């Protein structure tokens, strides 16, 4: 019995792109991360600490 050829989409299902590759291929998401991480950990946290220093009397 001759097997019927499968439609192309069924023969080669689209491979799911891994999360890390999707991250690395998205320049604007990387830009967001690269700006937000240092802004929060370095600048905002630092400024919050400075604002809590008591003023000299």
């Amino acid at each position, binding site marked *: 019995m001759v097997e019927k050829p499968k439609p192309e989409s069924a023969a080669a299902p689209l491979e799911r792109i891994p999360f890390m590759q999707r*991250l690395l291929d998205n320049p604007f998401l990387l*830009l967001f991360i*690269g700006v937000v991480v240092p802004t929060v*950990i*370095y*600048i905002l946290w*630092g400024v919050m600490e*400075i604002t809590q220093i008591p003023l000299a009397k």
Partner: protein
Amino acid sequence: MSTAATESDYIGRLATKFRTCPATGLKVDLAAERLIKANAVAAVVFLMIGGTFGLLVALTRWPAVHLLSSDMFYLVLTAHGLDVLLLWIIFFEMAILYFASAVILSSRIAAPRWGWVGFALMVVGGLMTNVAVLQGDSSVMFTSYVPLKAQPHFYLGLILFAVGALIGCFIFLGTLVIAKEEKTYEGSIPLVTFGALTACIIAVFTIASGAIILIPTFLWSVGYIANIDTLTYKLVWWAMGHSSQQINVSAHVAIWYLIAAVTVGAKPLSEKVSRTAFLLYIFFLQLASAHHLLVEPGLSSEWKIVNTSYMMYLAVLGSMIHGMTVPGSIEAAQRKSGYTRGVFEWLRKAPWGNPAFAGMFLSLVMFGFLGGISGVILGTEQLNIMMHNTLYVPGHFHATVVTGTTLAFMAATYLIVPLIFQRQIIWPKLARLQPYLFGLGAAGISVFMMGAGTLGVARRHWDITFPASDVILPYGYPPIASLMMGLNGLSAILAAIGGALYIAITVGSILFGKKVDATNAVASLGPMPKKIVHEAVTKYGDAGTWHLPGTYVLVGLFFTTFILYYFVNWKYLSELWPMQ
């Protein structure tokens, strides 16, 4: 997409003029090429100005010479910092961003007219700041810490320069979008472009931080704001001041991969690993700014340690990955070319006569051994107390920015001149010598300043002698400190000769170099084992081997040095306040 936008894209494509590079086969957008040329030329001009100021600084700090008066010393030191740490580096980085996007992706550049607006702002800003400094009322150092007040046009020039650079970053991102839309590449962007993207991202954070602090400081200088908090200024300023040097790190690592790919056909050992190392930069590299604030009493140990000891080490991990994968990829390519005898034949037979390769490899080694290790020492809160505000700090950043970045950019120039300016390098024998002269001089500057800093010599000080006739509390450093400063001066002269040679070769090649055409295009790139430009520059792909005995020996040597030096510094610390 709207019809108007589609028509605009279509007109953009039609209006773009390309040439095909005879060496690489890449399509080069002529508008991008003109922008690369303009930014590279501006970079070299500011290197020449800033480098001359640097020589004057070193000759003044040499006690036996002590060239300039104190007023002139601080003026020249301010100009030196601005011209080389900001202007030379960022102009050249703009050239790299345009090269890594439009040229490597064979794409048309986004909004080239805006590229010229950005370039004009950068030139006007750079000149304005230089004029402010040379007028003599703005000797506030590169850091311009408040309450030291410069003339308003000092800050305005920096702001204009930053806005211009920001435009360049968005043109780079726009070009990535165009290249993807127009399918000029398949799959992921090449690794060199990914490295440039990392530099661009850090640049956006850097410039935004600069705007946050410099705009109010400008308003303070003209009298609209009464007061700027000194600690807040330092905190936000260093998000610009130190991160601007992290743009360099990402850019010069991208250059290492580019030169290794062009000269020996090196493919990354693992694209995934190298990209992850760049990702570590994107997440964590900017946080190293905190090491400048490790002795500030107003900030908590938690903030300091999270930003430096924890997060910074993840960025250091990224650098160590690149430090292994770049020589590893060269070894893999060389072994594939037949250099398989022993552990180091691949290294002995590397194209050391090609100034691009020699400069790149020297940059890689010295950045790792001198800049990387000393950076970890400065980033360790306990050890930092020994070196903070000593000459160790400029010693460290001369290792990263001069032996690392500047040498890598000089090496890249030996490819950019034939590929983009389409001129052969004049004086090839002197060009071969140039990276060694400059590299040796710059390494000497770094080592001897770090040596003097370890002995406690203060940075930014006109005179390291404190005679009883001049000061209330006379103090003398150990005599060897004077020797260190003398050797620093000699090294600066050697680096200046190497730098002058670079400028003479570059300018001479652009003006008088033989025209590059299809017959001599590959030969113009200098000696290369394969005599072709490998597709590794533009294509995604791994080297496919981990048989790298020579690289493992080099990495072992690096770690041994790192561990020994790290613990030697802890020993110094234990002797700082001896228990009686």
